[in-house]
């Protein structure tokens, strides 16, 4: 019956002309695009090269032992926070409370240690546990009460900030000598221990994202919560875990800060502007702000670019306001580039830009055996 249908003259036979026009209008095949992680590291290389030249003009060596140490140290605190922020953003949430959590963690840890090595482990455990509880509260707000992460973390951040403001004036407590030693230690005078902590955390989180169900579900929920739910994913757990890890990583960043400053400070986090800088580093690293796509590797690249830029502007004694200007420019440019690269279009019906799937030549004849 269908054979006769095909020959009804009513079905308009496409004219040669229209076929030709259609072909002519067909867009060229998609340009091969670099993936954003490769792109960010290429940019990093360019930034490092430019910085080396600019530092050289100032009569200094960018690759000197001291300078490399300084850059890597600068990376480690923001890096840890940005790893946590990556997780939270990947799952489709946001954490604006990190600066206050960092401040709180420094005063709690420093207050617990009181400059004594014997207190160190208890203080560290208490601090990180407190951070975990803060993260848990945010995770529950976001996943169960469906408060958007932006608001949930803003609220929790304000609560913490209010607590800090009423209970602590000026610096508080003192870091244990062992912790301060850690802040000065490193490998061969080139690589600070803090940076190694950052690398280990980055590797662990990357492994989690790639090789655990939890990690896969983080991407799934951030990509499309409904699809994840329809596929039988429990959508609350990954959100909660991401928030807990983010706050704990902020706590670890606070301990690294404490190892350098020696005293807890209720304003150190907000002075560092870790909320916006960490989000900026994550986005610069190619993670979609809406979630579902991105990587810790990219984030570390973004953090490195900020650290190198800061370093070279420090060497050149750039006015601090100009520093912000440059940072802002970098962020805006990066986001504009990504937005251009990832425009989602409805797939066109005509002028398909992709080659057709090969139809198997052995349609159901020779491959019958595969039923076995």
């Amino acid at each position: 019956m269908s054979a006769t249908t095909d020959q009804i003259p009513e079905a308009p036979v496409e004219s040669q002309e229209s076929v030709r026009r259609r072909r002519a209008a067909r867009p060229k095949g998609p340009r091969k695009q670099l993936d954003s992680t490769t792109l960010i590291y290429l940019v990093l290389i360019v930034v490092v090269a430019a910085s080396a030249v600019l530092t050289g003009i100032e009569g200094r060596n960018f690759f000197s032992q001291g300078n490399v140490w300084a850059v890597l140290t600068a990376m480690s605190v923001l890096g840890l926070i940005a790893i946590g922020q990556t997780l939270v953003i990947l799952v489709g949430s946001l954490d604006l409370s990190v600066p206050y959590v960092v401040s709180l963690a420094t005063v709690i840890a420093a207050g617990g240690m009181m400059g004594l090595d014997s207190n160190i482990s208890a203080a560290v455990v208490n601090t990180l546990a407190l951070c975990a509880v803060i993260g848990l509260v945010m995770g529950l707000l976001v996943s169960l009460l469906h408060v958007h992460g932006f608001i949930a973390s803003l609220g929790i951040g304000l609560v913490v900030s209010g607590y800090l403001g009423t209970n602590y004036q000026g610096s508080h407590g003192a870091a244990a000598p062992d912790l301060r030693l850690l802040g000065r230690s490193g490998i061969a005078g080139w690589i600070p221990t803090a940076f190694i902590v950052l690398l280990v955390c980055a590797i662990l989180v990357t492994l989690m994202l790639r090789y655990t169900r939890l990690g896969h579900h983080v991407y799934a929920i951030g990509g499309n919560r409904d699809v994840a739910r329809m596929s039988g994913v429990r959508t609350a757990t990954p959100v909660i875990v991401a928030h807990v890890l983010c706050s704990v990583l902020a706590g670890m960043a606070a301990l690294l800060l404490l190892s350098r400053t020696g005293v807890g400070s209720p304003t150190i986090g907000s002075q560092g502007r870790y909320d916006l800088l960490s989000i900026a580093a994550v986005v610069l690293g190619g993670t979609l702000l809406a979630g579902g796509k991105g990587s810790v590797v990219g984030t570390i690249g973004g953090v490195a670019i900020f650290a190198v830029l800061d370093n070279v502007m420090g060497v050149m004694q750039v006015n601090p306001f100009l520093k912000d200007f440059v940072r802002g420019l970098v962020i805006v440019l990066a986001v504009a580039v990504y937005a251009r690269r990832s425009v989602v279009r409805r797939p066109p019906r005509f002028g398909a830009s992709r080659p057709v799937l090969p139809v198997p030549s052995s349609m159901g004849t020779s491959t019958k055996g595969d039923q076995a």
Partner: protein
Amino acid sequence: MTKSFFGNTVLADLDLTLQPGEVHGLVGENGAGKSTLMKMLAGVYTPDSGTIEVAGEQVSFSHPVQAQRAGVSTVFQEFNLLLERTIAENIWLGREPRRFGKAGPVDTARMRRDTEELLEGLGVSGLRAGALVRSLSVAEQQIVEIAKAVSFDAKVIQMDEPTAALADHEVELLYSIIRRLTDRGVAIVYVSHRLKEIFDLCATITILKDGQHVATRPAAELTESELVRLMVGRPLTTYFPEKPADVTVGDVRLALSGVGNGYVDDVSLEVRSGEIVGIAGLQGSGRTELLETIFGVHPVARGSIALDGAPLKVSSPRQGVRARLAFITEDRKAKGLALNQSILDNALGVVRSVFPRRTSQARKDMPGVLSNLEVAAASMGQEVQFLSGGNQQKVVLARWLSIDPLVVLMDEPTRGIDVGAKHRVYELMRELTRLGVAVLMVSSELPEVIGMSDRILVMRDGTLAGELPAGASEEAVLAMATGAATEGEAA
């Protein structure tokens, strides 16, 4: 294997039995209850009454995953895929294989291997398990959806309009996949508007109409025209206002010649002032996209559009409005109205932003326009979200009337509104023609297209399939829209 089912409300008392290895066609007009049936089998809705049995065992689903575990998988028309994840990650989402028992890491190698095996089993080559879904064509994404459905060891796979987004040569690939599945003893529920496909594939056909089960017949006993008659055959209940005698069809107002872009191709049509031209066609045939192209939402890549004889170049909706085109969108809540704003703000929305100098005049006229349209509301300050669908639609109409349009593009103008409001919309269309406005209306409701239009254009696969005169039969329109054969009806 039997599957019996006695539904209710939207779908009344339906029995359906599927044999292993059978392709069972499910046909009916838009809103006949096909989707409801599928969603119940998929575990999205729970039936109010009746039972479902799979392989002799009674089952009940309250979540799609339960249906999938029981062996019923569904490929929905809208894809449920994560664009930024790979094929393998999409297929095994929620049940990723793990090494070393429950706490182990995800076995990505096995995931990849299983995916490739699965695709190979479907006879598909050239898809890598590690490819990002975003990088795939629509046809390839469709294959991933099917592979995901198969991966649950499905005994029954439902496919909702699987070819809606596919080109002809891609349909062949889908056929070959379906044949492989039926060879393995999988039963397929195949929903499609395209009758040719139904006859190509299906052994048995079930026809639904207005939620009622019309018939289930072996395909061999049916002809296409018989099938169309069974799908349509319903009394005309809606009343359409007569075409007024004093309306004269004037000069060509809107003319398209050879218009094409990524969504429609080679469309040439004319709408004269005072004329209502209806566009019929199946969902996904490019009707909405055609209106959007005229209005400036999609760029025109080929061909040209003229308004009152002068070339019309619009590259954004704003320019469309400036040219005094009005566009009543299909999705009123998403694209037509700001739901939490007042009636007045909504009605003035277009004038305010595009013709700000006319705003004060429009504000003065608005009470008259709204009462003329019989909008039932406490005051003009009421938020539109609290209005009924019909009144919301009237607010949309009021906002477009305020620009004194030359051409009114209507996409499903009476979707989801009550009979009274429908009637008012029809009357308004007649009033517009009296003013010399050209009306181009897209509708899925055939009686509406036939009852209101001076001429009917039928779209299929993004192009115009043909033109029918006013008062053509539903069968003729449907046959042209589906590409079925009906002798003598073609224009």
